[in-house]
């Protein structure tokens, strides 16, 4: 469906403190990858950088595809915003419609079908403020369906949602994988990662492991990740490693 997303010695930072340190590798087209690691390990920052929302400090991110859909962490959004579910789903049409383009009957039907597919049929006119956390996450998945992008980035997609919602949404992720889309998800549930995700990137600021899930999650690596998460060193010198 598209070329690989290649990271070449990528460093991302907040205030010069690296959040992701000298990361190289690639997300192959059609791969299904989990990113795991302790809090503050740069997982969200990496996703945002791939989506073009965070500046790349050093190195390069090669994106041969033009459309990348990002599911943000739910807490980043104002869930009391006065907007109807169908309108949120239709935001997924932005690339095609822009600020002024007409939204035809076909586009509307597509958004309604997406709501149906995530189990929110009949919610079209409901304001998002009336949704539970799980329903809101379903709605954001509906928007992803409408976006129909070849690369999909998910930031903690199953956090704060009930088990049934998580199972339903996971089915969508499997469908995307089956359709040959590239899917990258930040996750915390290692059991889930083992079960469903063939590839894993274990990140703790420095990349710890990247490859087949079993190897990447081997116990030694997990231990190492915990040790490396000591975080922010006020006195840190400038990194000497060649860029």
């Amino acid at each position: 469906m598209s070329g690989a997303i290649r990271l070449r010695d990528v460093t991302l930072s907040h205030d010069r403190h690296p959040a992701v340190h000298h990361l190289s590798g690639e997300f192959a087209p059609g791969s299904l990858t989990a990113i795991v690691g302790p809090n503050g390990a740069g997982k969200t920052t990496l996703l945002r950088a791939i989506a073009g929302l965070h500046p790349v400090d050093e190195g390069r991110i090669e994106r041969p595809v033009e459309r990348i859909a990002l599911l943000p962490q739910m807490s980043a959004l104002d869930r009391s915003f006065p907007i109807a579910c169908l309108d949120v789903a239709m935001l997924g049409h932005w690339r095609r419609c822009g600020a002024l383009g007409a939204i035809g009957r076909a586009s509307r039907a597509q958004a309604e079908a997406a709501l149906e597919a995530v189990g929110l049929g009949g919610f079209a006119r409901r304001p998002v403020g009336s949704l539970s956390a799980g329903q809101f996450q379903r709605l954001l998945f509906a928007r992803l369906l409408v976006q129909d992008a070849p690369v999909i980035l998910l930031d903690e997609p199953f956090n704060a949602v009930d088990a049934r919602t998580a199972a339903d949404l996971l089915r969508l992720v499997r469908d995307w994988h089956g359709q040959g889309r590239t899917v990258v998800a930040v996750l915390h549930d290692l059991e889930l990662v083992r079960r469903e995700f063939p590839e894993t990137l274990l990140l703790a600021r420095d990349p710890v492991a990247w490859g087949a899930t079993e190897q990447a999650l081997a116990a030694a690596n997990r231990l190492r990740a915990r040790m490396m998460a000591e975080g922010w060193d006020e006195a840190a010198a400038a990194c000497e490693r060649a860029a």
Partner: protein
Amino acid sequence: MLYELLIAPFAEFGFLRRALVGCLVMSVAAPPLGVFLMLRRMSLTADVLAHGILPGVAAGFILAGLSVTAMSVGGLVAGLAVTLGAGALSRATGGREDSALAALYLVALALGVTMISASAGSVELTHLLFGSVLGVDDPALLMMAGVATFTLGALAFAWRPLVLECFDPSFAAAEGARGGAWHLLFMGLVVLNVLAAFQALGTMMAVGLMMLPAVAARHWARAVGGMVYAAVGIAVLASASGILLSYHLDVPTGPAVVLAAGAAWIVSVLAGPVDGVLARVMRRRHLAG
């Protein structure tokens, strides 16, 4: 009797008709902007802008006296400078935008008052600070009408990106929606409307017709569009009733209009169907499904 109360004042006095037209024109354009400001949690920004334009207005006043054109140009320059300056300042210092705005607004207000006091008397100062709804002349009226027309046209074009940018700015950025550019256009509209309102309500209350109806409208609708209609309706009501009240009770007109809008806000907080106090107290029986 009703004619005496509601129609006769306007039929009799030209300056009241002018005041009414001026306030109604503002009531159509400013409240929608207020709704967007509220949704972006920038309710205080408009107020800061209204104070921020004062040095520019004062400069225009010093150069050309109470001329609408000179004061508007000065105010426009100052308003845009404050908007861009506050944005740049908060990005550069990594601080929160609201603290930068608070600092700017205090400096601007003090500077403006100093400039005007140094070159004119307290009558002019009062006029600039508190406005004079009844003193709205033709140039001021034309400017208000022009600003309102432009605002409504621009909002019609910018509606979709503005809602998107309010609801999910990082989605907007990822999809290449140029949220920043739309935001800049929006802030430009706010500056223009504050300037127009300034002609009638003065620096201190210029945003009364922008923010109060918008905040009140939150209690009447669950969609952005509905909120905008409600806000415009409330502003129109507040304008007419404020002017009538000031005429019958012989109180200053600008504050009366803003007070009327304030009363509408209180009623909305109490009796509005969305998150209103009454709706919460008088719990109705739950629905069957």
